[in-house]
């Protein structure tokens, strides 16, 4: 278990702490290498690449855009999981498989 935490601290974007999940989505969906994927996500979120890796900036951006956080105060505005992925798919202009399957099963498409 120490491996994941060490890699995340030493070299990782930190997933939903910043925008690591979204950068990885671009690698998976469009086969983008790391610099291209970061630039793409940064442009879609309206931040610089430096800000994209900054936990303080990205906490605000993610909260304001409803893109999911690693820590949220329980409240009606809390947005994580499937709800956040609906918004991520729209913001990044990609299809997210779980969102598409959810829409099918919920009769939304």
């Amino acid at each position, binding site marked *: 278990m120490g*491996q994941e935490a*060490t*890699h995340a601290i030493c*070299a990782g974007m930190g997933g939903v702490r910043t925008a*690591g*999940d979204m950068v990885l989505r671009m690698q998976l969906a469009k086969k983008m*290498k790391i610099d291209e994927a970061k630039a793409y996500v940064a442009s879609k979120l309206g931040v610089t690449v430096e800000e994209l890796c900054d936990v303080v900036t990205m906490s605000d951006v993610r909260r304001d855009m409803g893109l999911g956080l690693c820590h949220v105060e329980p409240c009606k505005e809390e947005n994580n999981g499937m709800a956040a992925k609906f918004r991520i798919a729209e913001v990044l202009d990609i299809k997210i498989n779980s969102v598409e399957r*959810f829409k099918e099963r919920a009769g939304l498409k």
Partner: protein
Amino acid sequence: MAEEKKYQSRMGDGSLVFMTEDEIRADMREGMADAVKRGKIDPMSEEDFERLYEIITMPGGVVGVEPGKEIVNTNDSGGYKINVKSQMPLPKEMETLIYERCLGCDSVDIGNTDYNYKTAKGVAKRDAGALKQALNVTTMPLLFGGMPDLGFYTQPDGPAGNWATLLPDGKIKEALAAQEEAVEYSIKDICYVADQAYDVGADGMNLDTCGAAGDADFLAALKACEAITSKYPDFPVEIGMAGEFVLGMHGRLKYNGKRLAGLYPHDQVKLAEQAGASIFGLVVNTNCNKSFAWNMARVITFVQACTKVANIPVHADVGMGVCGIPMVEIMPVDVMSRADKALVELGKIDGF
């Protein structure tokens, strides 16, 4: 005369070692030369060599990459490192949330605890059910993971002949045929599991530890990847390797005309691209009897050769015993963090 300064480092088995600057540099030269000779690749530049020396001897217990150079990670944990390997009773879907919200991971995979597709097939619908629940509550990408692990298809408990016993008996033709038969079983199983994972909304498939049983094992992964991405163009596949070198257990197998036996990462990645993979998981073996300096210089030489030619993201496999990480269960973060920094800043990798 004052004793020459020694730096604390480790051997490939994780044991502590104290080395002088000359000893570290000599090991680095030797490790790099080994990669150049085996892979028929270029050595590191002198500038990169000096930077790697700095990283290896950098003060501090833990080091990190420069701000802005952070990378992302995928995972081959199967979503059972907490509930099975650490014996903390927790459903898989809850485990994925810990990866996301406590450990800062960019993704995780869910798979069978017996992490191979032959076993996973039998309970694929049930594991897919857990994956579906996890996908409803997590924000980060979740993949389904497992190994082709061709050895599982051999007799006595598998359908194909056992080439590990046929070969020593001199039954060469039978051994080759058994491997070719196992490839077909493996592709079928991987594709069946992929169908279940796709149907519940997985973000991709992780074909992990490919080539573990040799060239036939790697061929099964490439063909399965091709089949999955042909059937589901929006369903990405990650191919992660078992070792730096594809063992020629068969020896004659080819993919798109390229013989698989003997390929190193810079050739492996080109085949992964042709198969339609979105991410290639690179492996360079850790030599337990050599120092971290020897291993890391060798690793970076191989990694640079791979990332220079890759057109898809390359994730360095940084688990136990690969890419400079010592061969121990409980990881020492001093060398682990140095491996991370070197892989990102010098190896130019796209993720872990």
